């Protein structure tokens, strides 16, 4: 028995005023989509029991580890800590019947089980909705496949960029008249995660009335199709979308313009950009005044959106001439001060240093046993009058003993036996 395997959760999990206080969730997901779903649910106060296996670690436990030479690198991932904050952690060998039995017993008193195995795996583990429904009719089971449980696509693995292609979004994305373009982040994952969280919450609402749970497949591909529904309708109207990059079909000019770096680097070297939209003729006038080109107002050449769209390239050059002389922050603030929508194109580092996010306590310090004080993002659903205390993600198997003896009725001797037989563990196999 290790010391950490006996740990009890901190006080942060016990706030009774949170929307999901008293809701227990078994989380069998890993990587991004599923953990992002349960991140939102744990932020709302749910008790989320994340179950990995001694031979089946969440893959991101070994990514983004600041110092891979530490004793337990798998407990030191930034990525893992961000998306698995406040969860309880178990490591159970679910290939073994005794391991499956633990999960089934947990399911007797749980409200939700969420998983993102390949379709079919959950059935082989004896944890299908039909099986769990027999022992707990109120349980809600949510699966997050890339595609669906339907042949022939049920056997195909799909990562975010695959699914983004198959869902149509990549076709619509792209520079003006360019090729299809993939998103910068694995966009299908957060969409699937949010959809998964929404599915859980909807099913909980419905259960208040019906008294029973249900099975929900939240397909990443299908949810992505829902984000291009307007394009699908337009296609049926005979409008084939051509890619327009950062421009708009309605207003002009609109684009991102090169800026000097915050460190004084020239615009050619800085890879720093400001986004600007001119949504009205009045804003165009304000822009001309701000960039010291009143001559453009007087000439009347670009007075309306039709003229501005026709001369978009030319206008982009004019705006760039002004933005290149200042930082993206200075440019955006100057334009916002005269009522023009504008923002720096924030990089991950820019997000970290952003004054608006800083003023809203978007970054929260949590204590991590090895990493010390680290920064994770605040809950984003601000229920006014309710607060959520945050803590680091669980170490592998950190709450094995707590869950087995406090939430279930295993004795300490039985837990010792499970540990010695490798059914539960707190180190990878």
């Amino acid at each position: 028995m290790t010391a950490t395997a006996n740990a009890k959760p901190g006080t942060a999990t016990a706030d009774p005023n949170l929307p999901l206080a008293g809701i227990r969730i078994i989380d069998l997901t890993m990587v991004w989509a599923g953990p992002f779903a349960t991140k939102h649910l744990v932020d709302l106060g749910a008790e989320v029991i994340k179950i990995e296996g001694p031979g089946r670690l969440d893959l991101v436990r070994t990514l983004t580890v600041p110092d891979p030479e530490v004793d337990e690198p798998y407990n030191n991932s930034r990525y893992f800590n961000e998306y698995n904050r406040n969860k309880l952690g178990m490591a159970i060998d679910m290939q073994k019947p005794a391991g499956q039995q633990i999960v089934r017993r947990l399911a007797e008193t749980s409200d939700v089980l969420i998983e993102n195995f390949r379709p079919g795996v959950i059935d082989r583990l004896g944890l299908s909705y039909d099986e769990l429904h027999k022992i707990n009719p109120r349980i809600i089971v949510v699966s997050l496949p890339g595609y669906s449980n339907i042949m022939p696509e049920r056997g195909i693995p799909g990562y975010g960029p695959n699914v983004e292609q198959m869902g149509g979004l990549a076709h619509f994305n792209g520079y003006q008249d360019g090729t299809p373009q993939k998103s910068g982040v694995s966009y299908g994952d957060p969409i699937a995660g949010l959809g998964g969280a929404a599915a859980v919450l909807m099913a909980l609402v419905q259960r208040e009335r019906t008294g029973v749970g249900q099975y929900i497949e939240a397909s990443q591909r299908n949810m992505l199709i829902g984000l291009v529904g307007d394009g699908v309708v337009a296609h049926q109207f005979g409008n084939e979308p051509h890619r327009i990059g950062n421009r708009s079909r309605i207003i002009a000019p609109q684009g991102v313009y090169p800026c000097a770096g915050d460190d004084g680097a020239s615009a050619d070297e800085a890879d720093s950009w400001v986004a600007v939209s001119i949504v009205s003729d009045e804003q165009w006038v304000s822009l001309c005044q701000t960039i010291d080109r009143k001559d453009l107002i007087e000439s009347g050449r670009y007075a309306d959106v039709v003229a501005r769209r026709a001369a978009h390239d030319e206008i982009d050059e004019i705006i760039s001439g002004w933005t290149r002389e200042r930082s993206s922050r200075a440019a955006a603030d100057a334009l916002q001060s005269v009522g023009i929508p504008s923002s720096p194109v924030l990089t991950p580092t820019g997000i970290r240093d952003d004054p608006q996010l800083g003023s809203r306590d978007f970054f929260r310090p949590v204590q991590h046993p090895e990493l010390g004080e680290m920064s994770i993002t605040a809950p984003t659903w601000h229920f006014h009058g309710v607060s959520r205390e945050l803590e680091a993600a669980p170490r592998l198997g950190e709450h094995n003993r707590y869950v087995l003896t406090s939430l279930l009725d295993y004795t300490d001797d039985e837990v010792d036996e499970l540990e010695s037989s490798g059914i539960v563990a707190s180190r990878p196999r």
Partner: protein
Amino acid sequence: MPDLPLVGTVVVEVATGTASALASRMMAGYGAEVLKVEPPSGDPMRGVGPFPAGHADGETSAAFLYFHGGKSSVVLDLDTAAARAELANLLAGADILLTDVPLSKRESLGLSEAHLREAVPRLTVISVTPYGETGPQANYLATDLTEAASGGQMSLMGDPGKPPLKAYGNQAECQSAFHVYGAAMAALLLRFRTDKGSYVELAVQELQASAMEAQGPMAYNRDPAMPGLSSRTGNGMRVTWSQYRCKDGYAGIFVNAPNLPSFFEAIGRPDDLSRALDDEFMTGELLAYVKEWCAVRTRNEVYEVAIAIGAPFSYVATPDDLLTSPTIEQTGIWREVQHPIAGTFRVPGPPFRASNSAFELRPAPLLGEHTAEVLSHRSGHDAATVTAIVGQSAATRVNAAV
């Protein structure tokens, strides 16, 4: 028997953004009564298009028809006191308000947090703003482009050496729609326990900045950036993680370590698995081979191999591909809409495949189509009073539509 999960729930939408629009569309599909409050000139999205041939009339915008399916349109000119009183009536009988009205205008419309808490304590308010309701930028203006820029994800999209690229449409707000939906459901759950509504503040910037994959958590902790992960990598960063041109479009090969055996088998070179760590081989000989392998195949031929071997290959699906795929059809996603002016077309319907949750959609409403019905049903007004409230021009539209 599947039933409508949100039956009996009344939602009022006083918003123009896609986040509220898409979220309330899902609510409507799942059984809520969604009252979309529009000005006499209509929601701005009615003017966006694209439109079917021969139309450009405010009733047939593809964007409006999609994002506002299943709702009722109630025209209220909120510049008038009578209309504002009517909005207050609607809110008194509602469960959820979705709003993205600029903060500076909320008090005058009776939509401030303090007022709503006092006047309708059981109402849940989901308030969406670009930057949140506090802080130095709370009143900054935003568009779909600037929202994408402020959230961080855009900085990672696009080709190296080219400007950052915004995704299609308004993805900043599309992803926010799931937050709106989820937060509204959570608030309903809380109300079962407390019998009180919630005020939930959502900042589109924060919603994106919390979804920055690995790059966010590293940068937020001042860790050195990982090579290839801190800036734009275009359509691929390595031979096994790229989009490729094929005979009739584009294919995708996005392979992580566990899939390497299936990848090498799928491209007909199983013996090269042993060379997967040989950079010179992977970036030279193999890259050239994979480019050619894709170039001589159609998208479907690439996909057939993926199915046969179980490799994470894909292709860039067009709208036509989506609409004609038998597998997608079988998931039950499509709903046919019969619209009185735009005709018959199909839309993506339920976001989930649920064993016990039905999803049904009426067409998107004509402007003011339900004003008279809603105001008389919810406030007990007769036709003359409704006319007085909504104003003569809007009433004409109402009568024409009813």
